[in-house]
């Protein structure tokens, strides 16, 4: 076992190196093509939101149908503070994150007394209410006409405006966010969260303060979303409430499900697959059906989604090949999750039935 561990470590180092080269080199690989880069930026932003949601769903066992609200909070806070109040973008980003955290705390306290679908509904309701705020609070958000002219973010006085600059910025955030999430998951906190997922009574009788941890993760996921929102606002420089309504929340959810919550990188994988799938369909559908419009893409997207989920309900990270997963999981190996477990049985073990 010791031996195997060291081997894995060695292999892991190479993997890291290769990853770093690809990461740094990408803008040159796709040289000059801002379209590809901006696709990557978008993936990165979604991935950031998705990572937070992966934590929330996979570890606090909670579906959020209102995550776009936090995304929007970050975006509007940044937009307003930089454009109208003249704050530096970084400070505004932190302010947005703090605001999102605060709101998550206030909302979370009552919300986490709820269970299952009621909790999902509560987050949905929260999403709708925030959307209404974005829409109606015209003095701050510009209402449905949108918010223009958001100034760029600066590093050492240099405004970041090009796609490759943003690529580095956003991907650094994604990596840092993923690293942080991974650490959380592998710690006492992550274990406690998964325990809550399995059985709340048991977890609490072992000393896990359920509400506290659920709330912490909810806040964390709100911060991830808010930061992504701030970055988005500076990237596109124009935002409007439609970006932060219920539909985007559902899209985030879809990404996380596609990616799977078996690993904290599920958010990244999901976002990438989601965006690429959309772009791929855009390219492929017209080849198959020359006269088809966008509606075909919707149909295909829906079908793909359904098929994908039927055959890999635990998302892509849930079915990743063993070898790859061993690289991800350093501290200990985990028995094959994909073996068909009779779900009824599993439920009766973990659940509160009986």
């Amino acid at each position, binding site marked *: 076992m010791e031996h195997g561990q060291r081997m894995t470590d060695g292999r892991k180092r190479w993997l890291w190196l290769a990853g770093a080269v690809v990461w740094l080199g990408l803008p040159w690989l796709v040289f000059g093509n801002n379209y590809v880069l901006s696709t990557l930026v978008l993936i990165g932003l979604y991935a950031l939101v998705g990572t937070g949601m992966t934590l929330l*769903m996979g570890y606090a066992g909670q*579906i959020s149908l209102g995550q776009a609200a936090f995304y929007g909070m970050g975006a509007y806070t940044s937009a307003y503070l930089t454009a109208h109040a003249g704050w530096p973008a970084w400070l505004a980003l932190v302010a947005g994150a703090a605001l999102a955290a605060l709101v998550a705390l206030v909302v979370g306290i*009552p*919300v986490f*007394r*709820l*269970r*299952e*679908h*009621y909790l*999902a*509904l*509560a987050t*949905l*309701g*929260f999403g*709708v*209410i925030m959307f*209404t*705020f974005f*829409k*109606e609070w015209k003095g701050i958000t510009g209402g449905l006409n949108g918010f223009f002219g958001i100034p760029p973010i600066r590093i050492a006085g240099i405004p970041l405006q090009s796609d490759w600059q943003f690529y580095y910025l956003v991907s650094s955030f994604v990596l840092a966010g993923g690293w942080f999430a991974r650490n959380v998951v592998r710690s006492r906190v992550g274990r406690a969260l998964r325990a809550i997922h399995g059985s709340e*009574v048991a977890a609490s009788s072992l000393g896990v303060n359920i509400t506290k941890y659920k709330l912490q993760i909810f806040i964390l996921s709100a911060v991830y979303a808010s930061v992504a929102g701030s970055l988005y606002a500076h990237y596109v420089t124009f935002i409007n409430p439609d970006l932060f309504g*219920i539909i985007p929340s*559902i899209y985030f*959810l*879809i990404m996380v*499900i596609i990616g799977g919550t078996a690993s904290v990188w599920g958010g990244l994988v999901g976002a990438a697959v989601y965006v690429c799938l959309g772009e791929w369909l855009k390219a492929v559908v017209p080849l198959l059906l020359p006269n088809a419009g966008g*509606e*075909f*893409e*919707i*149909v295909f*997207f*829906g*079908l*793909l*989604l*359904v098929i994908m*989920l*039927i055959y890999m*309900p*635990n998302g892509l990270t849930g079915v990743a090949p063993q070898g790859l997963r061993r690289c991800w999981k350093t501290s200990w190996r985990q028995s094959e999750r994909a073996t*068909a477990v*009779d*779900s*009824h*049985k599993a439920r*009766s073990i973990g659940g*509160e*039935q009986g």
Partner: protein
Amino acid sequence: MEAWSQFVQLLFSGLTVGSIYALVALGFVITYSVTGILNLAQGDFAMLGALFCVTLVNDGVPFVLAIGLSIVAVMAIGALFERLAIQPARRSPVAVLIIITIGASFVFRGIALLVWGTNPYALRPFTGHGALEAFGAVIQWQSVWAIILSLASFAALHLFFHRTYIGKAVAACVINPFAARLMGIDIRKMSLGAIAASAGLGALAGIVIAPISGASYDMGMMIGLKAFIAAVVGGLTNAPAAIAGAFLVGLLESFAEGYLSSGYKEAISFGLLLLVLFFMPNGLFAKMTGKRV
């Protein structure tokens, strides 16, 4: 007197909207209480029902027959959906199943867009364009139909779940599918029946609404969402509660709109719903759940 008639008008409005939510919400309840799945494509069944009916009527099929045919057609689609999308994924986590239904909803919407285009269509009311006047307020006959049909469907469902043997078996499927199998209950058949039935109810809802608000390919989403809320407020496995929830949401919206501002209507109803949830976490009409340690 003026104030009184406004009140009655708001009441009528609320009942109209509520009855529409109710019909769709019943579909949610059936599906959920049999399969444990929140079918977010439920609203799209309404859309399909309405558009089928419009097409049939325009093709000269007699009205009543057209209604019947479209309901049957949508039920068939529902059954197909169950066999192709839900059944193969039975063992997936709840969240995945929800997303599958969202995916299916995309498919339905895309196909509708393809077949019917983006234009909204009109359908004639069941019984004339007339309206009923009472206490200085008016209510369309079509709204009366909506209310009657939602109450009738509710009554039928209530009888089914609480007075029949099969109704109980149906409930058993979601409570403990494993034990249900051991009792010889055919879960697959139940699930097929449930989804087909809720598709049929959804279609009926769409057909009732079409004369009031028109029918278009994208009408499913919003109806579905509101009905979903109504169902959850009531308590997801409880048909009467869902109906009550639907009327509650409808009335709330109507009064909020009439007495407060309409811009914040959604936020107000959602906000009040949140309050309800916080103080009665299992829905307004929750019963003992049978969970303990």
